[in-house]
């Protein structure tokens, strides 16, 4: 099994507030990690560090393949003033053939001409998840991907994640609701000193 990610003794603090200290873990291909913790425990901060957006205060992150990370965060990276279709064309996509299948599955295919701003909250989230579905990265970093999704879309997401695990992708995600994906747990509430 290949090691996709190794975190060694990560510490992160903002203005003297320590969020986590001495966090070490490995992530192998085909495995998933579910980051747990209360609000403000540092889940988003950890995931940002993993995806390379920010740097830990101390400790180090080693990735097997630096460029191949897919990150889906609280922010949707959608252009509100463009239609769904235009937003799709802005998406840098690896699997072009699957677009229509996914649009149909997520019940977005009728909304291609609608401006993103007038979509419902969950529909926007689904559109943002297309970035994940159409991507071919080795490491998937998801920050609360289920927020605002209805049951059906949650199931689609989970089954997609399970598929990805079988395809030897590595997953790390945070979520307050439990996802139906086999995973190890990291609890940040315990990591606070």
């Amino acid at each position, binding site marked *: 099994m290949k090691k996709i990610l190794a975190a060694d003794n990560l510490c992160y603090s903002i203005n003297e507030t320590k969020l986590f200290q001495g966090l070490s873990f490995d992530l192998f291909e085909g495995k998933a990690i579910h980051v747990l913790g209360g609000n403000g425990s540092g889940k988003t901060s950890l995931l*940002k560090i993993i*995806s*390379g*957006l*920010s*740097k830990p205060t101390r400790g180090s992150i080693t990735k097997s393949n630096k*460029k191949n*990370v897919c*990150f889906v*965060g*609280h*922010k*949707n*990276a*959608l*252009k*509100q*003033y*463009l239609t769904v279709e*235009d937003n799709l*064309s*802005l998406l*840098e996509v690896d699997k072009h053939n699957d677009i229509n299948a996914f649009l149909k599955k997520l019940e977005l295919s009728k909304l291609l001409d609608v401006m993103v701003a007038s979509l419902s909250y969950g529909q926007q989230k689904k559109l943002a998840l297309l*970035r994940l579905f159409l991507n071919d990265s080795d490491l998937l970093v998801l920050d609360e991907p289920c927020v605002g999704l209805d049951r059906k879309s949650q199931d689609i997401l989970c089954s997609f994640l399970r598929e990805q695990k079988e395809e030897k992708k590595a997953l790390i995600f945070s979520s307050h609701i439990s996802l139906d994906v086999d995973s190890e747990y990291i609890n940040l509430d315990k990591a606070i000193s």
Partner: protein
Amino acid sequence: MKLINFEFLKLRKKSRGWLGPILVFILIMTAFPLTVEILNKNLEQAFFSILWIATLLVMMLATEDIFLEDYNDGSLEQMAIKYDSLSGLVATKIFVYWVLIGIPISLIGALYGFGITRSSESALQILPILLITTYIFLNVFSFGNALSLTKGSILGTLITMPLVLPLLVVLGKVVIAINLGISFLGFLFLLLGILSIIILILPMIISFVIKAHLE
């Protein structure tokens, strides 16, 4: 190439983004004769002042959310994950803004220049100056906006004004050169020199600043 297309699409569709500044420019240039009554001599003398200041302001307006929008909706995050350095993206963005806003404004400015000074020669001389100046302004204001990314564009303006004021002085000299019929080529090369340095250095600095913001 893909980046350029993307940025073109985004800016074009956001009419407030590109048509807006151009309209404001036209507004200023049209409004200004109204405020000086029809004493045509005054008009010509004040024209260049207004032209430069309008250009400056409109470039300021135009760049207002050159990065902010992408930052707020998370696109910048995605880009930063994808690329080691954002300076390519930054340079592309500024270039697209120049093409869609800077060039039209330069043309319109030269046209107004022709209309008011009635001299096709000076209009032709203004055009390259405007083209270069708008590009410089766009770069500098983008820098300011990058620094003050989350804090609002006006902090950015405050920060960058001291950087662009010296440029205005040069522009003031250009006008005198044009009016007196002195060769203005020296100024053109001076501006070109400034521009080329700025084009090389600023996108890198901006990229660095943006990365820091995303942390």
